């Protein structure tokens, strides 16, 4: 009996969603120079390969390297907008990619998952943009004279609060 075979890997469109976000990562890391851009390109390529193959670990690693490109750009003096933009794009690319892998694992390549994937990416991007804008406003109007350690402690406190609220 021939029958239908379930392919548990994401389809082209899932890779495209990740690819669009990934291209923003590369665009943002160009601000830091050719080295960081190169790292970002390699990372995004690895991420997309991982998504296409349905291998979460490869996708994770790719996203990490892509983000390293953004961090590199920041260390080489890229502006806050580029760094924020790159960070959000990296998270969205990783989030939509790994979500597509998990989705394909459950429902297969043949199912039409475009709607739920795009929605997932948009939710993620929305949160990222909100965070970016918040951060940027803090950067502009916030107390610039404070030592960075204070900011770090504040961040840590916020994170602990978030986790504690949910427990």
């Amino acid at each position, binding site marked *: *009996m*021939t*029958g*239908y075979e*379930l392919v548990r890997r994401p389809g082209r469109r899932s890779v495209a969603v990740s690819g669009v976000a990934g291209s923003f990562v590369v665009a943002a890391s160009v601000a830091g120079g050719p080295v960081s851009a190169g790292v970002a390109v390699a990372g995004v390529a690895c991420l997309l390969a991982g998504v296409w193959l349905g291998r979460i670990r490869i996708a*994770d690693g790719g996203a990490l390297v892509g*983000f390293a490109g*953004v*961090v590199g750009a*920041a*260390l080489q003096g*890229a*502006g*806050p907008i*580029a*760094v*924020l933009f790159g*960070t*959000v794009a990296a*998270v969205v690319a990783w*989030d939509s990619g*790994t*979500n597509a892998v*998990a*989705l394909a694992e*459950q*429902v*297969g390549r*043949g*199912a*039409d*998952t475009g*709607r*739920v994937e795009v*929605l*997932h990416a948009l*939710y*993620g991007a929305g*949160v*990222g943009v*909100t*965070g*970016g804008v*918040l*951060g*940027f406003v*803090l*950067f502009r109007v916030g107390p610039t004279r404070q030592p*960075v*350690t204070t*900011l*770090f402690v504040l*961040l*840590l406190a*916020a*994170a602990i609060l*978030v*986790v504690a*609220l*949910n427990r």
Partner: protein
Amino acid sequence: MTDRSRADDRPGDSVTSGGTVPDDETAPDGGADVATTDGETAVGDDASEDVAGTPEPAVAGRSGPSGATVGDRDGTESVEPAETDAETEGTLTIRAVTTRRTGRWVGVAGLSFLTAGLGIVTSTRPLLLAAVVGVLYLAYANVTSAPTPSLSAARRVSDSTPDPGDEVEVTVSVTNTGDSSLPDLRVVEQVPDALSVERGPARAATALRPGATMTFSYTVTARRGEFDFDGLTLVVRNASGSEEKEFDLSMAPTTLTCVPPVAATDAVPLHALTSHYTGRVATDTAGEGVEFASVREYQHGDPLSRIDWNRYASSGTLATMEFREERMATVVLLVDLRKGAYVQSGEGGRNAVERSVDASHRLFNSLLDTGDRVGIAALSKDDIWLPPGAGPTHQAEARHLLATHPALSPTPPDERVYVRPALRMLVGRLPDDAQVLFCSPMVDDAAAYVARRLHVRGHPVTVVSPDATRRDTIGRTLASVERSNRLSELRAAGIRVIDWSEDESLFEALEAARRRWSR
């Protein structure tokens, strides 16, 4: 193949077209209420009122999975008898709920602090900003949990009584009846094991806003049997995907009944054990018939038509010809349904039980056609016994039994069958003059034992053995040789064996056997 439409695209109840509200519906408690909320069910809502919007925490769903029928218990199955297609929608009952955190955002949390740390060490403020984004993502992942959906579902098959090999389209629609939207809903159809999906995944994923319906359809190839489509697996995630809930749901079954058309084969060669009724099995008794038996001296009163006029012409003495008397046989078809009989040669073929059941069906009809009395029995966990009989009612009964009895389904049973008690029971039931047609792949000695025991008990056995062996590996060759030895031993014991190989039809196998036996 996913087609989604929002509820407002289809006015009214999007899953129940007006005509499918069953007339024969026994009015459950509060019939008027049911008429408007037909098939509407709250999943995981212990309050069990049909306004089940409020998502409950995961624990609530977990606390009541043991038969916590939600909604009205009477179910609202609606099958349209006028047409062949059937639509079922019903109470969704939770069989099991699993809630798990996917943990996919943990890495992001770690990474954002690493970034912040790097920002401090290198005094790079943009990196600290990036960490702010990370913390926000952490909040996004942590503060929401997977919603408990409130859903109704309907299933529709394009043809509820297909012929074997027909393609049947199954359409499943799931409606969000709650008032919160589901950002990530994955539905996996629980297709009956024996059916294979031909086209389209029997799964779908989408986001559903309140009142919206998702529909997906797939095609299965029908095969002999009765199949219940009664389950759905649902996976609901929150928007960030940090938590997912998996529901194993059962609903009123949609039944697919696939009864093969009446098929027969050529006349079946039988042993000369017969009843005293006139039939078609030639016996050794001389009398009325068509096959010449002997010539005897003329006795007064012999009919003129039986006088051997040739002899009279040559020698002048009167002699009477005698023919072999033809009698009716009583046959019981015994099908081997033990777990070991579900053997199959290679991938994709039919297993030996399927071939046996198919053969039984054909043998049954041709034996009935030739005027014999036929019954059905099986070596199985379930008690299958159709006493020998004749007539159209008996034929219809047997056809239904062979097509839809769950023990005859193409998937192997879990329990083992104890041969000796089954055999004792069978022998007790067999009429004295019954002979047995035993359909078994003969893959073990127990089957040969059954054949031999029945034979020595005075029920002549003819074994119809679908060959499922191959000779491509050493082990398989060994099994194949063992089987042919077993068959040879049976033949030596006076049992007739029809070795039915995969690439020949039953008709060819019977012909070959007949030629061998008449020699």
